[in-house]
């Protein structure tokens, strides 16, 4: 697992992923971690723990909200869900990401320019 992408670079991406994971319904932190693990095939999270600060920052910005429930094993579990603002933010992130990735891939696949310009 040495070729994992640098996490710092992807802080924003992590937030976007969290929002995306919640778009189908409420999840607890471990559920979110599992989903990210699944869809990124273990590429993203070097430390699973870093998920939590990101999650709580989103909550502080009112993009997600949480509620405490009790699990079958009688443990306190915190479940997160998207707020309306969170949903809007997710849409914004998606379109931004699309523009960004198109631009980057276009740049990376470009040929050597002619001497014109």
């Amino acid at each position, binding site marked *: 697992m040495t070729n994992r992408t640098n996490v710092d670079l992807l802080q924003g991406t992590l937030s976007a992923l969290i929002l995306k994971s919640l778009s189908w319904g409420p999840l607890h932190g*471990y559920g979110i971690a599992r989903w990210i693990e699944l869809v990124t095939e273990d590429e993203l999270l*070097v430390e*699973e723990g870093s998920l939590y*600060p990101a999650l709580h920052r989103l909550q*502080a910005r009112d993009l997600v909200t949480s*509620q405490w*429930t*009790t699990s079958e094993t009688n*443990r*306190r579990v915190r479940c997160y869900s998207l707020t309306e603002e969170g949903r809007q933010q997710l849409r914004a992130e998606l379109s931004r990401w699309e523009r960004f990735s198109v631009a980057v891939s276009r740049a990376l696949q470009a040929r050597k320019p002619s001497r014109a310009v």
Partner: protein
Amino acid sequence: MSTSERPERRIWRDTKTDANDEIAFHLEMRERDFRERGMNAEDAREAARRRFGRIDAITTEVRQIDDESARQKRRTGMWTDLRQDVSYALRGLRRAPGFTLVAVMTLALGIGANTAIFSLINAVLIKPLPFADSDALVFLWNTRASGEPEPLNPARMIDFRNQMTSLAGFAGISHLSFTLTGYGDPEQISGSSVSSSFFDVLGVRPMLGETFHAGTTDPNAVVLSHRLWLRRFNQDPSIVGRTVVLNKRVRTVAAVMPREFTWPMVTARPAPGDAGPELWVPGGPGDIPRPAIDEDVDLRTNRSAGFLRAVARLKPGVTVTQARAEAAAVAQRLSRTYAEDDGRGATIVPIRDQVSGGYRRPLVVLAGAVAFVLAIACANIASLLLGRAADRRREIAVRRALGAATGRIVRQLLTESVVLSMVGAGVGLVLAWWMSSFLLSLAPVDLTSGISVIDPRVLAFSLLVTAAVGLAFGAAPAFEVIRGPLTPALSEGGTRTSGSARTTRIRDMLVAIEIAVALVLLAGSVLLVRSFLGLTRVDTGIATRNLMTFDIRLTGERAEYQSKQVAFYTQMLDRLRAVPGVTAAGAAVTLPIGGDDFGTTYLVEGKPSPAGGEKPHGGYQIVMPGYFSAMGIPVRAGRDFQASDDRQSQPVAIVNETLARREWPGQDAIGRRIRFDDSSGWMTVVGVVGDIRHLGPSVPPRPELYQAVTQRSFPFLAVVVRTAGDPYAALPSLRRAVAELDPDLPLAHPRTMDDHIAHALSRPKFLSALITGFGAIAVVLAVIGIYGMMSWSVSQRRKELAVRMALGARGDALMQLVLRKALVLTVVGIATGLVAARIATSALTGLLFGVEATDLATLAITVGVIVIVSLAACYVPARRALSVNPVDVLR
């Protein structure tokens, strides 16, 4: 991984527990995952922890994020709540316009009156005077054996200037009058001659040019006040260096003082006088301020002409008490050295006491009065809020039942009180501003210089007091409502519960207090009004009706010789008497009541000169023949002065009845001889005239010694002319008559004797008008309080009264029932008020004239007014309650 849908019953937990639990759950789930993939328990646990990363650091970070976010939300939440509370409060106040109006007006009156009066007090008594380090400035006065201060003579002033070691600077002042010529119309201007150190002692700088300095002063220089520069010289910026003619002497304008520099007329007894001097000239030989005759005479060794006021600056660290002790010691030394100084002391008076000392007592009384007004206003507000809270028990109970948090409800009620206070304060500010300008228009002239309109600190204080009252009485009932059980408030509408009984009791008490305080204020104002009316009715001994007065000052050659002065005066009076409509004319060097006052010691022939002790002392007037008949002063025995009493004939004097009675009781005074002191010549008494109150209506007559202008004259004179009709209408013809003799001679300060006396009464008038104003405000507020309380208590008993009516109770019996309580409260209030008034009015003792502070008639009037007013305030709501149809109430 699945969780139940049941939300946790939230018990408050801190963010640390939350973070720990959340992360522990994560680790547990991951561990289970690994175990399911076949790891042993130990490895699974280790792998889960490794995969999670820095557990402690992340837990801390999560916690910090949550805490910070919670803080942020609390802050924004508070603002939202506040906005909500304020708009709720405003809505509530709009729904109760009567309550709001009364509360706001009460607050506004309380805050407005307080702010205005304390701003005035601050300006007059507390604010530093416009001089450098004004606390170190003092006046030095001679004192007689009686302790009464009097001006210094030149030689004595020099002694004090040289011997006092506690003074860093010393300047003499002499008030004199100047005739300005050669610059437009001639005009008489009051001014001062001062030692050249005067401006440096005060630490003031000129706006234009350069003031006098010790040792370097041009004897012909003159410094102008800002007011004179504005009024007379059109703010000419190039005035410095130009010449003006004052008393026929050419003087060069050296400086113009800034607008802030106002300097009062300084008199030995602090009292309101005319506006201060408008120009300053340096002293004569030896830097001694010039005497009233404005001539270059060397007075350095003169130990008899007491015309000098002295202002000095204390050395740093020297107290007034120390300086006073030193002045007394120097005076003692001097009385051992000079026979003339025997029996004389000296004292030091701080400049603040000198300038506003006469106002200290009245202003302290005003401060007390206005504090009473604020107290009544606060009691009213408290009572109103209590009643309102009781009325809202039901509303509050409903909101509680619906789940509103207690803290939130209390905060809402408090917000209402604060909003109310704020609105009241806003209106109060407008009122204060308006009252301040009104006060200034009422205030005697010498108070009006340098008064700032509203002092922000004073306003802040009034606001704080009322806001505190609002909070206290807004909160108390709120807490009571909240602590009590819900059901009675909901089911019975809160009319018959214990909380309501307590509220009623507190309100009753507040009303009784209001009545008591209103009584005190009313008693005080009745006393002052009676005193003032008494003053205006006092017989001063002068027939003031249709009596015009004005001042003249001779200049040039005519002023130089006494014979020429007398000749001119005689001619002038003859011409004035010839003016149609003039019935009599006379003149004196100084006019009674508010004019300059000369006093003198005297010795009676045949009586030994009191050794070492105080020589008899009396007023000293120098008058023209005809003065007594013009003033309406009766000649009781002997004769008036006549033209033949000149400098060649034997010196004569006239005395008043008081002097005659004191020196020759039961004997004829005519033909006796009297003189000023051992070295002066004898004068024969040729007449005895009626007493007048020379020092003003409030001061009883004293011994008075009159001498004839024809035997001792000055180049200035105050003329009195009695007219048949309106004296002001006669003024132009009087001017013409004088102009025929000398077109360059101005008629200065023309005013009627009535105006003259009114001016002398302006201070007691100011005080009594203000206190009466406050008394009226207090009574109005108390009436509002009684009315509000009665309406409320009647409305609370509507059902009960309706039942009684339905059962056949007679209207007047019910009325009695309702009024009985009001009567009890009034009686309690009056009893308390009488005791308090007894104490409070003793503060008025020195300010009253012709009435005792314990005057029974005053108390009777006051109690009568209070009883009538409070019963009237009760009657209206009671009448209304009894006039309704009981069926409507009971249905």
